[in-house]
């Protein structure tokens, strides 16, 4: 979905998100958070893109929108991905629409640091749900695919696919970025126990305000520099160091 927005959105960073709400009526009631998939300007107008999957009534309502409809958009929000200047390679590990912030990251990396090697591991349920693949193939040096049903690429979780390549990378020149469902991030965390590559993840939690006020979106973070405890995904995140997150089976 392409959204025409105010010029301030040109400052959007990969990993940041927006809160989106239908303009009319109270159903669905709360705004919904979506990662920024791209941000650019054409002429005097600024646009952002979001990539969404229909999972419930909010996203269903989006799917009924037509060109020219007006939405309420708040953003850009949250803390985006850190982009260290030292690494030479980056690997993106995406599950489903988790590809959105990673694709935006690749886009920006490509602009900022020419020649950077970007590898992408992309997992989805079926070959049809590989939205955003074309764009990634343009942005990355290589894209490897896995599907749960084996309809395209590796048959199995994307973390398995990444595991096969782990030995190709060395600790000091690679930076991982990941976004996807919690179970995927949990197995990635497990996988990295032996090979602790630097890895940033973008998390999802139910949100009400998106700006740090409601305390609805917390996730458990191991105590560390930032204090730890129950920390707001919308404000301190959505990007966290994977090693700091205490995942629990998502419950709602």
């Amino acid at each position, binding site marked *: 979905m392409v959204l025409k927005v105010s010029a301030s959105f040109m400052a959007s960073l990969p990993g940041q998100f927006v809160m989106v709400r239908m303009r009319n009526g*109270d159903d669905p*009631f*709360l*705004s919904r958070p979506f990662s920024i998939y791209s941000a650019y300007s054409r002429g005097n107008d600024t646009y952002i893109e979001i990539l969404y999957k229909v999972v419930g009534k909010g996203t269903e309502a989006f799917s009924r929108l037509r060109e020219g409809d007006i939405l309420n958009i708040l953003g850009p929000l949250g803390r985006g991905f850190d982009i260290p200047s030292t690494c030479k390679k980056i690997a993106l590990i995406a599950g489903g629409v988790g590809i959105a912030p990673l694709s935006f990251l690749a886009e920006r990396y490509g602009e900022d640091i020419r020649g950077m090697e970007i590898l992408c591991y992309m997992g989805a349920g079926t070959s049809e749900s590989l939205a955003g693949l074309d764009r990634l193939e343009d942005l990355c040096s290589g894209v490897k695919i896995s599907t749960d049903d084996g309809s395209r690429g590796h048959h199995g979780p994307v973390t398995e696919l990444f595991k096969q390549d782990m030995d190709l990378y060395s600790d000091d020149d690679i930076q991982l970025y990941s976004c996807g469902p919690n179970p995927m991030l949990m197995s990635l965390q497990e996988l990295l126990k032996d090979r602790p590559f630097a890895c940033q993840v973008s998390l999802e939690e*139910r949100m009400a305000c998106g*700006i*740090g*006020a409601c305390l609805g979106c*917390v996730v458990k973070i191991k105590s560390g520099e930032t204090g730890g405890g129950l920390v707001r995904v919308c404000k301190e995140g959505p990007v966290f160091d994977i090693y700091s997150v205490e995942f629990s089976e*998502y419950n709602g």
Partner: protein
Amino acid sequence: MNVKMTVDIGGLTLKNPVMTASGTFGYGEEYSDYLDLDRLGAIIVKGLSLKPREGNLPPRIVETASGMLNAVGLQNVGVRAFIDDKLPWLRSVDSVVIANIFGETIEDYANVAEILNDAEGVAAVEVNISCPNVKRGGITFGSDPAVAEEVTRAVKSVSRLPVIVKLTPNVTDITKIARRVEAAGADALSLINTITGMSVDIEKRVPHLKNVTGGLSGPAIKPVALRMVWEVVNTVSIPVIGVGGIMNARDALEFLIVGAKAVQVGTANFLNPGVTADIIDDMERYLSEKGIDDIHDLIGTLKV
């Protein structure tokens, strides 16, 4: 538009009757990018306790029909960290700051109120009596008239600030509680807090909230809030502040017409962080269109 919007709540003068409800406005600063905080009648901060509290495990919120359930569990930095870390910034805002407080025991309440006596920039305390009383097996303070009275008395006996007591709607007869709280010396009442509710994930067969139940807020509860405000304004003579499901000026005006002297906007801030400014503007416009030049000429004018 030169409509007089000033109201007086238990000795506290507000430039207009629109406040932000506790727990929905953080410590104010969170909204400063989206709203000129100077415009607000008052800012009520997230509930403060003696010690910092971590709150409940997630998931903490879930959407419902025209509303939401929350089980944040009163997470807060604690009253001292509030004074040291949050209040200095708030002092730069040209509005009235009200500290919402709660405790697990009556002594807790009194202690927090006492600490706030010396906090420069805090204009009043709002006492949240909707939280569970650990000593009495988790029954909320606010659902027992005697205990509600006791808490109010304890806070009043130590506080040198105006004391607003915030009532829970989860009771058979809110006027009974209101009367006792008034008798205990409260300077004003605010109502309602959230209504206890629940929601279930039918796929996983688990509650949507880790805490199982949570507090319902938003437009869904507005009719209940309005009814209770109506009952209470007809019972007590101290000022009543209306809270519950206010999304726009029309909703706020319903509360004022019924007799509330001011209103608090809660959940609506989440959907539009600038909503309170819109409410103030639209309220002023309504008054001038109706030729009402002082908001007091609207308050309590319901014809029945």
